[in-house]
């Protein structure tokens, strides 16, 4: 396999992993449901996106790459809808967001 592709792939994978890490840390550190939903819908999805991209570049056929890439929008749609549903439910139940002014923990 082409070294360049391998390097590219590795880089993409590492970036993806970093996003995952961030997502997890966010999940643990963020103060309330709403904020945690942010990490889920953004960091983790991005992490997955990069990983998929990293794997897709080293796929041995175009179709395989397409199949990998197909997964990402599916996950995106799912997580957007789920986070919307959960946020909406939380709002309906009157769970107020924890509001800070910029540097609260």
């Amino acid at each position, binding site marked *: 396999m082409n070294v360049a592709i391998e390097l590219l792939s590795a880089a993409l994978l590492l970036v993806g992993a970093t996003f995952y890490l961030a997502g997890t840390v966010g999940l643990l550190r963020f103060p309330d449901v709403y904020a945690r939903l942010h990490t889920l819908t953004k960091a983790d999805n991005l992490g997955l996106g990069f990983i998929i991209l990293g794997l897709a570049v080293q796929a041995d056929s175009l179709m395989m790459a397409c199949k990998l890439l197909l997964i990402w929008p*599916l996950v995106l*749609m*799912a997580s957007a*809808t789920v986070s*919307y*549903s959960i946020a909406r439910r939380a709002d309906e139940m009157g769970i107020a967001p924890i509001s800070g002014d910029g540097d609260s923990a």
Partner: protein
Amino acid sequence: MSLIFDTLLVATLLWSAWRSLATSDLVHAVVMFIVFGLLMSLAWARLGAPDIALAEAAIGAGLTGALLLDALRVSNQTAQPGSLAKIPALQRMAVLLISTVLAIGLIIAVLYAPLPSIQLPSMVEANMAQSGVTHTVTAVLLNFRGYDTLLEVAVLLLALLGMLAVAPARPVSVSHVPIDPVLATLARLLVPLMILTACYLLWAGDHRPGGAFQAAAVLAAAGVLLHLAGLLQAWIRPGQLLRLGLSAGFVLFLSLAAILLTEGALLRYPPVWAGALILLIEAGLTLSLSLILAGLFLLLSGRRGVP
């Protein structure tokens, strides 16, 4: 690296299983169970059993979670909200002890096991040419041991019957679930894709992991999703048509078995026809199994009014 991965995976599996059992909070238990299902899917993948990983992913992610979460809603209205009776410490210890002994026993048994003297996989390989398919799992499931599968389908149908038998008398009509635009859009986009994927899995079963059960699970999940989005009414009672759908796959399978029986032996396919017959059976099973799996959700759902 693999060793660390596997050890970690097993540890997490055990831990999530234990949490799921030991927690006094029902929702927590269900969440842990869903986690357990996903980890199980990973474990099957690691064990080189992608067929089961596929089934576990479809069932665990799509159906079991939804069913359990829906059941929580019902149990909330009848039982103490979100709590389980505390298990006495003594019983816990006993369970732990038994499990440990069993685990040690299993380890010893496996460690001292001689190599099997019968090599079934090689026999399967030797007979693949007559099986009508090229994927060994499918050959075993629908040809060599198709009889097991026939009975298993009966078990699934029976599970639904059992559920119907328990379900108390239901209202004549179900209250309409309001359509949520965001959710509905997701369903409208995803469901055709799910159908496509289900067909793909059915097709794939012939030569690689996939098949009727996995396809049916995906279809059933599509049904659940449509229902949750308000696009599909809950089923009030199994009417004539639905009953036909629920049992069609089984009846087809059984009829073929009976026809083949008059020709010789139960489920002995003529090698020329084997591939086509298996595909036919699998298609029927996909339909019925998906209705059965979806029925587990749709026939129970919407009875007590959506919160």
